[in-house]
């Protein structure tokens, strides 16, 4: 069987998700053996014009040029998988969606007219059809390997859409919200990080975005009872997944 051709693409992002791929040190040689890496600027200068069997896409769409580029990549890719909060929800840069971008550029840059940018930062799936989304800021190494392994084996990756709370309970982590009154986005956030924050006594920041059937309104009512002011609630939903519809809507209701 011919090796599958893999391409890795970057849009508006911090490179952290691609680095997660490079961080799979123990498995990298095996991955490189199983796949032909046709395009991955973080790892190799070799460039292959495609078509590709699998495209992994990091980053969000923030310029007209990028909106064009993702369409071209889609056309050349059999399977397109987005990785990370930027690609799946617009990333932290989607804070601009709630603000006036021109006011920002004129405040920050000496020559704002040199800046060519869209008013929004949006998910890849707002522009092209996406076959699978891998959440997280950054993505989890474990889930990334599962995704690659499953794709090679021709099966669906096992990436549950359940709550972060599920990970707490499976790991025996004491709930920080119930036992300490610490605000936590876990009940509306998709699992995947391996229970990072609650296991260290902190509330979940929502890196993996909204879970299936999220109910942020009900959570906000409880967070307000724990003492969060409206403004704090608004900001709580506005981090890496600010642009994810369930979080965006909830944050707007606390403006």
């Amino acid at each position: 069987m011919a090796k599958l051709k893999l391409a890795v693409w970057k849009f508006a992002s911090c490179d952290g998700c691609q680095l997660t791929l490079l961080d799979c040190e123990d498995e990298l040689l095996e991955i490189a053996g199983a796949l032909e890496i046709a395009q991955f600027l973080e790892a190799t200068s070799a460039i292959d014009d495609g078509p590709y069997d699998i495209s992994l896409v990091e980053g969000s769409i923030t310029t007209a040029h990028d909106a064009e580029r993702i369409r071209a990549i889609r056309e050349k890719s059999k399977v397109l998988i987005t990785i990370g909060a930027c690609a799946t929800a617009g990333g932290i840069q989607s804070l601009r969606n709630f603000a006036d971008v021109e006011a920002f550029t004129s405040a920050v840059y000496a020559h704002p007219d040199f800046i060519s940018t869209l008013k929004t930062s949006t998910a890849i799936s707002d522009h092209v059809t996406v076959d699978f989304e891998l959440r997280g800021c950054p993505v989890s190494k474990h889930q990334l390997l599962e995704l690659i392994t499953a794709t090679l084996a021709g099966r669906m990756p096992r990436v549950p859409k359940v709550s972060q709370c599920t990970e707490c309970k499976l790991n025996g982590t004491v709930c920080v919200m119930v036992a300490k009154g610490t605000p936590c986005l876990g009940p509306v956030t998709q699992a995947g990080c391996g229970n990072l924050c609650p296991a260290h006594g902190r509330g979940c920041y929502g890196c993996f975005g909204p879970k299936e059937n999220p109910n942020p309104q009900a959570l906000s009512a409880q967070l307000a009872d724990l003492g969060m002011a409206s403004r704090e609630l608004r900001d709580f939903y506005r981090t890496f997944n600010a642009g994810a519809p369930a979080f965006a809507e909830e944050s707007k209701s606390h403006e």
Partner: protein
Amino acid sequence: MTARTGGSFILDDPAPLVDALRADGWRVIGPREGDGAIVYDEIETAADLPRGFVDEQDGGHYRLRESGNDRWFDYVVGPQNWKKWLFPARQKLWSATRTADGFDIDPEKVEFPKTALFGTRACEIAAIEIQDRVFDNGDFADAGYRHRRENTLIVAVQCARSAPTCFCSSMNTGPRAEAGFDIALTELEDGGFFVECGSDRGAEILDRIDATAADAAAEEAAQAVTEQAAQMQMRSMPENIAGLLKDSLDHPRWAEVADRCLSCANCTLACPTCFCSDVEDVNDLSGDHTERWRVWDSCFSLDFSYIHGGAVRRSTLSRYRQWMTHKLSSWHDQFDTSGCVGCGRCITWCPVGIDITEEAAAFAAEPAEPADAGGLET
């Protein structure tokens, strides 16, 4: 049978019992203070026990505080329960390796050392007995579960107080454990322990200890302790709830609770009787080696009810209804008992404090017309 089986004794403190168990080769799992709660983990001596702590519990609320006295067991049940040990959250079932003409299967051997569950409460014994029916059920028994249970010894602690979330009295599961233990301890009001021996295995341990026989006054004092815990209970389950829920499947109350429910699954995962799991296959990059794991799952997750073409019970309404009706109603049809022992964990550990007894009371207060199954929300 030793002379001690069925007898009762007096001990000054639990230390000699922990020591005797360990000397007899038992791993002792018991309550410990961890991350601001009572958790169940291995203990080496009685000094590891969280002496002088008391818990404060309510819907979505738990705090562990120093009690200001040196009593040993004034806290009640915490976020974890014994299924963590008897029905582990993640369990490898078998692995397989590709061969020239197929694959070899290597079943996972379950190794569970002799383990004493120290400090098991009455409701928890009832929960273990419920899971016994689920997993140790004749032709379809789970060999791993059975092995773990066979290697388990139960040292009960009879509750001296109840949390406001406890309602074992109304479920007839506590606060006094009448059976199901090898040894049971009651911490008496003026110090010291009334020790009941429930089995030969318990007697073998007690034979190692210098404990004096208890008299009738001590037994009366022990009864008074659990009596007092029962008196403290503030919540209860309506007696006719099983039938009531059957007639309430399209009651408007479901929509109200679904508005508040996060479908986060905490209630099911904290519940000591919930037994649902998922089975997943994990293969390596080469595809030459694969493992099959069993992992806790919950009826609140959509994949749980995924069948050809999609998941059934898509709405939070139908998911909450599945949880509550299974626990309190259809469990009777399936296992001849309620699926709830009244431990209150689902109330305390629900991040938004949804209270199964309050929901039950709402159905009891306004019974619905018998359900029209055709119109059920899925």
